[in-house]
């Protein structure tokens, strides 16, 4: 009897340990509504754009990445992987050379245009991710978790980030901010627009946009007219100091009252897990400047 019980237990254990092929097959719908099918968890992943590389790394799967694009600079171990494209576009030849079993990309720049059709023809699964809000990034983390066969880890990482967002301080009044992401040659300023990932992160931190332009380029005059309570600069402190030394910036009330803060470009412009770090830091700063 004892032997039979042991045999039954071993059979059940073996069945659990080695699920059938049908059970390991993965099928998910991506951001463009394409059905992505994989015969099993991918072992050789190519990521296009830093945000996707960071999501894969956050799931602890950096060792499965076999190719990245030239925009990926973090984490260091991924930045050193073979490059499959960059500023001048993406190469299907370079992707085939690293023999991936999954390509994760965002339909930005020319990535989808150049890669989806050839990948489909070659039968290499490709999954597109869009990140128009922080919530969508958390969704992407869970989705990448499921597609890579790491559902539990995806859930864990995403819910930990969600808990941190839920614990953010709430301000009595949302200060108005303008986030300057760059200055173009003709003096126009690139600012965060409504409906973008960056603006969603600013909103989560407790701010609201001082101006809501249709195009991302606005004049300094428009910025002065919008009169933000706080001026944010996506870049280094040195970059912000240099900007404020330019003529015209002293007119801005936020500059005169020294309410100017430099935020990390990686945290606010790359839709990855690090954004929550940026949101937390900015939320504390806003509390410091406007609550007390």
């Amino acid at each position: 009897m004892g032997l039979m019980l042991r045999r039954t237990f071993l059979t059940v254990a073996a069945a659990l340990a080695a699920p059938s092929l049908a059970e390991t097959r993965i099928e998910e719908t991506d951001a463009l509504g394409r059905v992505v099918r994989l015969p099993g968890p991918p072992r050789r992943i190519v990521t296009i754009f830093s945000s996707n590389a960071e999501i894969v790394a956050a799931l602890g799967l950096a060792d499965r990445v076999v190719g990245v694009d030239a925009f990926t600079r973090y984490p260091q171990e991924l930045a050193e992987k073979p490059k499959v494209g960059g500023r001048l576009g993406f190469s299907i030849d370079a992707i085939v050379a690293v023999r991936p079993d999954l390509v994760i990309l965002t339909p930005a720049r020319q990535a989808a245009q150049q890669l989806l059709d050839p990948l489909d023809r070659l039968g290499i699964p490709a999954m597109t991710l869009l990140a128009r809000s922080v919530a969508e990034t958390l969704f992407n983390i869970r989705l990448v978790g499921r597609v890579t066969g790491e559902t539990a880890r995806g859930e864990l990482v995403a819910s930990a980030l969600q808990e941190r967002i839920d614990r953010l301080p709430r301000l009595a009044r949302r200060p108005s901010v303008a986030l300057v992401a760059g200055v173009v040659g003709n003096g126009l300023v690139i600012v965060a627009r409504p409906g973008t990932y960056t603006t969603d992160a600013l909103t989560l931190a407790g701010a609201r946009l001082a101006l809501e332009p249709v195009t991302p380029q606005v004049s300094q005059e428009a910025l002065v007219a919008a009169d933000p309570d706080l001026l944010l600069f996506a870049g280094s402190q040195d970059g912000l100091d240099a900007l404020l030394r330019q003529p015209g910036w002293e007119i801005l009330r936020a500059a005169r009252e020294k309410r100017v803060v430099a935020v990390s470009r990686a945290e606010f412009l790359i839709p990855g897990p690090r954004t929550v770090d940026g949101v937390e830091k900015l939320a504390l700063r806003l509390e410091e400047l406007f609550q007390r």
Partner: protein
Amino acid sequence: MKIRPVLIAAAGLGLALVFACCAGHDWASPGEVLRAIGGDNSLESRLLVTWRLPRALAAALVGALLGLSGAIFQGVFRNPLAEPYLLGSSGGAAIGATVALLAPIPMPSGLSLAVFSFAGAWGATWLVLAAASVGTRLDTSGLLLAGVAVAAVLGAARSFLMLALSDDATNLQVALSWTLGGIQTPGPTGLAVLAAITAAMVVLALTLSRGLDLTTLGDEAARSGGMAPERFSRIAILIAAATVAAAVAWGGLVAFVGLIAPHVARWLAGGSHARLLPTSACVGAIIVAVCDGLARSVLPPAEIPLGLITALAGGPFFLLLLRRRGRQMV
């Protein structure tokens, strides 16, 4: 009809196609290409057969269309500086492509791009012809000026559309890169359609060859040869514009080829349009197939926009030919 120049051009095209199939991020040997075509099922071979080969063929066909239309335009205008984008085709095609790439259209993107850019290119030339026609008269300088004006209006409209329609997902780079030229790799059906269009255009163009020969001699000579020059010009322009529209639908705006291919062809085959037109198509095919190969292989893993290569490589090559020709004439 002297057959030698056409044979030389055809042999050159064969070599160009072999080069284009071998060129890429990882260069393939001609043997590897043959093995891939023979049915070797490795991933690299499938890449060669399903992606690189159709792309090389599409590049050659786009080049043939550009060479052909350039030869017709230069013949009609009796002007060696005439080029396929002269009468607003480029501006029209670019605006069509911008709408197809950036606006939400319920059509597969490959199809909408081809249809919209074709309609834009051909539509713009119709507009130029209509603007420059006074009664039944067709004034050449009026045509060229109307072409400049229409191109300016369309260029501005396109820039506005690019700024207004682009967002994070469908952004400016895609539309911008299209205007710098780049071959769309067709599937088997697309490739067959492109080949059929190219063959049809070559046949149509050949029916124009006698008229183009007469036009070269001037309007009076054309009339005495029993031809109505203005009616002929209008038909020839519309055929050439449809040819260039087909080229932009598959290749975007590829600079310089339509201008230099007819010149090279003229040096090879002489001025008779029956030989000049197919030779120019062949030369155009060689230039674009080789330049597309270079675009894919010189800066791996990046791909340089094709139009930049054709202008960067074609410009100095053309100047060199001009100098050599000048020396021979002295």
